[in-house]
């Protein structure tokens, strides 16, 4: 515990010194009821980079945990902004205990509580054994990395080092990389997907890129070469959870393509012409070639996709303002609905697959219930478009009474207003709205929409935009201006919260260190029964 405390002090002083460059008005911490989130590290692209293409692309970040040793639990966690931030397996959480702690000397004890529970349950003592490596910063090609795109390049930074500059840059001559995803469970080494503005897609091994000293992609598998199948911009790439190396690519023209890693990479562009742009249709490739299927989702761009943690469902959001949730295997629309107005820009699942968050051009964060197949709450608090949403699957409600009975979900959102907002969703409180809609009726019992509002919506239908007065409102717990530029995404990790702005600056905020867990040792939390509840978002 002494060590841990000391390293915490070291950290805060390090961040304080690193924060001299903070623009006026930007604080290096923000408070919630649990405590202070402190700015730990900043990552960005090299200062000299002022490519003409800079500013035309929006930076996205993917967190990639590279395997430490082959003998360790073969599981890592990955999350990608706006793409698969909700996608983590139970095993990946286990990994996070071991390595997240090992790699970050600021790990503290507070952040590990829920996962300690899961560790115990799964029966691994990984957490305690990996504590041996506390203090060993990983500069050796193993560990946790940030993959982010800026202009015509992909940068890779070591998440747990103080270096602001990336350790690797990969330049693309043909088009700008715009989206990426990492699969910790990839079997044959190709674990990183990169989607380009030209529609091209690459799959590569991240380790191989890190081992190579050049500035080009090495050992890449190239899909949709020169946009031969689809030449519209890639908007999102995602590995299919438990999909055996299959992945999907969403495009700006409203199509999603399914690829299988072990199939021939050369394109088979012979998909039939889409007859009705406004309707959902799926076509399969006639030969066993990539892409194996095309899903036409909607008119206009698909702005975000996210698989549920088990891979059963895929959610899409797009220019037309609709969230759509599909049964992935059966290729069927399950539910969905329209924003208050304007395009939707991002979406994310809760770990248990019960809720979906969306954010968009109406400045609202929407909470969707899969059980009810409709919007259950609107989060009001952003002053501009909402560009990133994520559930904090590592968060657990404080041990006060009621835990385990009423489920509380913690989630975050970032917007083009440069703000990060944190929210709590407590379903018990939503049934009777906490706050009355201005001028509207406080409950669902009156108003024109009441009749169908009370009941779940039928399967396979899309809901129209609800009226402002009919949706319960949420207020944020905290709103913090984290960057000077509009934000493009956020990721929750075991120890921290990552925010990224459109221009390619990443900030890493450490979670509050709870005083309670400081007083109790690690072994205590491992056996504490209350921790087995393991938080709201945890997939059982």
């Amino acid at each position, binding site marked *: 515990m002494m060590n841990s405390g000391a390293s915490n002090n070291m950290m805060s002083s390090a961040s304080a010194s690193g924060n001299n460059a903070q623009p006026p008005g930007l604080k290096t911490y923000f408070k919630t009821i649990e405590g202070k989130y402190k700015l730990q590290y900043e990552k960005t692209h090299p200062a000299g980079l002022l490519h003409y293409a800079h500013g035309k692309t929006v930076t996205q970040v993917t967190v990639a945990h590279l395997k430490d040793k082959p003998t360790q639990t073969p599981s890592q966690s990955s999350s990608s902004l706006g793409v698969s931030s909700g996608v983590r397996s139970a095993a990946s959480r286990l990994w996070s205990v071991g390595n997240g702690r090992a790699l970050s000397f600021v790990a503290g004890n507070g952040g590990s509580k829920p996962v300690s529970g899961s560790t115990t349950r799964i029966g691994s003592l990984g957490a305690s054994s990996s504590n041996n490596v506390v203090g060993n910063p990983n500069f050796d090609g193993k560990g946790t990395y940030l993959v982010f795109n800026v202009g015509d390049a992909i940068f890779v930074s070591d998440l747990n080092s103080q270096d602001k500059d990336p350790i690797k840059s990969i330049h693309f001559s043909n088009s700008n990389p715009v989206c990426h995803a990492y699969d910790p469970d990839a079997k044959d080494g190709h674990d990183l997907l990169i989607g380009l503005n030209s529609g091209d897609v690459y799959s590569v091994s991240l380790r191989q890129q890190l081992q190579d000293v050049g500035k080009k992609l090495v050992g890449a598998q190239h899909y949709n070469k020169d946009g031969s199948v689809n030449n519209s911009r890639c908007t999102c790439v995602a590995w299919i959870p438990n999909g055996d190396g299959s992945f999907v690519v969403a495009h*700006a023209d409203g199509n999603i393509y399914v690829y299988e890693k072990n199939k021939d990479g050369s394109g088979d562009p012979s998909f039939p012409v889409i007859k009705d742009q406004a309707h959902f249709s799926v076509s399969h490739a006639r030969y066993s070639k990539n892409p194996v299927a095309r899903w036409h989702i909607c008119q206009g761009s698909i702005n975000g996709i996210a698989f549920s943690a088990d891979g059963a469902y895929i959610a899409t959001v797009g220019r037309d303002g609709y969230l759509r949730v599909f049964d992935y295997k059966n290729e069927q629309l399950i539910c969905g609905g329209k924003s208050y107005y304007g395009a939707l820009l991002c979406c994310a699942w809760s770990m248990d697959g019960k809720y979906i968050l969306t954010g968009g051009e109406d400045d609202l964060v929407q909470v969707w219930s899969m059980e009810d197949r409709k919007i259950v709450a609107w989060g009001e608090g952003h002053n501009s478009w909402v560009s990133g949403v994520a559930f904090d699957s590592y968060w657990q409600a404080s041990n006060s009474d009621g835990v385990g009975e009423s489920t509380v979900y913690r989630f975050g959102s970032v917007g083009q207003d440069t703000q990060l907002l944190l929210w709590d969703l407590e379903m018990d409180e939503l049934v009777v709205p906490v706050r009355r809609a201005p001028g509207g009726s406080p409950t669902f019992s009156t108003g024109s929409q009441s009749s169908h509002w009370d009941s779940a919506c039928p399967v396979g239908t899309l809901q129209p935009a609800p009226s402002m007065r009919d949706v319960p409102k949420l207020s944020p717990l905290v709103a913090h201006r984290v960057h000077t530029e509009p934000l493009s995404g956020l990721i929750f990790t075991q120890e921290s919260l990552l925010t990224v702005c459109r221009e390619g600056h990443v900030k890493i905020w450490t979670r509050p260190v709870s005083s309670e867990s400081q007083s109790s040792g690690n072994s205590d939390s491992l056996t504490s029964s209350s921790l087995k509840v393991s938080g709201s978002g945890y997939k059982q």
Partner: protein
Amino acid sequence: MGVGGSKLEKALGDHFPEGERYFGFENFGNTCYCNSVLQALYFCVPFREQLLEYYSNNKSQGDGDENLLTCLADLFSQISSQKKKTGVVAPKRFVQRLRKENDVFRGYMHQDAHEFLNFLLNQLVEILEKAPHKVKGEDVPNGPCNGGQVNGLVKQEPPITWVHNTFQGILTNETRCLRCETVTARDEIFLDLSIDIEQNSSITSCLKNFSSTETLNANDKFFCDKCSSLQEAQKRMRIKKPPRILVIHLKRFKFMEQLNRHKKLSYRVVFPLELKLSTTVGDADSEYSLFAVVVHIGSGPNHGHYVSLVKSHNHWLFFDDENVEIIDESAIQTFFGSAQEYSTNTDHGYILFYESLTADDKQ
């Protein structure tokens, strides 16, 4: 028409809308403020249709008095009756007339596009109100508000012109005395909304601030008629009747007292392609769709250039004086403004035109 037509025609190909004309306007020395607004108005379909209808109803009466209305009608009819689908016209008579009517626009200085739009719409209204012949249109109801009284500033029932029917909305300025709780409501008509802007915000947020509640206290108390004394009060501005065409003017030119001059705010203010306005009456929020943006290019208020982005038949077009190009919808985001004060991007959305999607025949 030449072989294959213009570049724009080639770009549109078979998608060139039936009967539509895309013509650039010649610049007569810093008249881009005028050109950009006129393009936005031309592609404001209800306005154009009513103006052309007015033109066909009135041209038979012979060339009586020339005014801004007749000059504008002439210009629009000149475009719509072109044989070619694309090209350039010279709005010479209109600009001459404009310079005659208002000496502000007489010089060759850079002018404010919003000032011009405001002047033009008010002139049109004035001309139509004076016109002896009856214009169609119903009176806008101006009944008292719930629990309040109307200190109507609406003039002695002037005729409601088609310009009113297109652009006019009603704001209600509600003041609630914190002592007796009486709400005093005062209605104001508007042809456009001028809103204050903030860095890294959205139009939604700026509109919210526009109608947010403000407390009147200390030296700024409210004289309550019922209490017959100065009282603390809460004031808010709400939209009572949303207009058919919602024109939003972003106050990018701000007077800086310490500098004693105007400064351009290059703030990044995002505007969605669809928008909803909550109103004081009715269940449904009125829904709007963006169809034109007047863009100011330049770092200062006294120089620069104006262009416009216009949506016509689901295509976005870029009008820069005589040049007309087709652009992708996604290019609109390059006109939001800059997140940093000193930026090379100086192309900023300045006047936004939204059209109502709500069936509003009754209005």
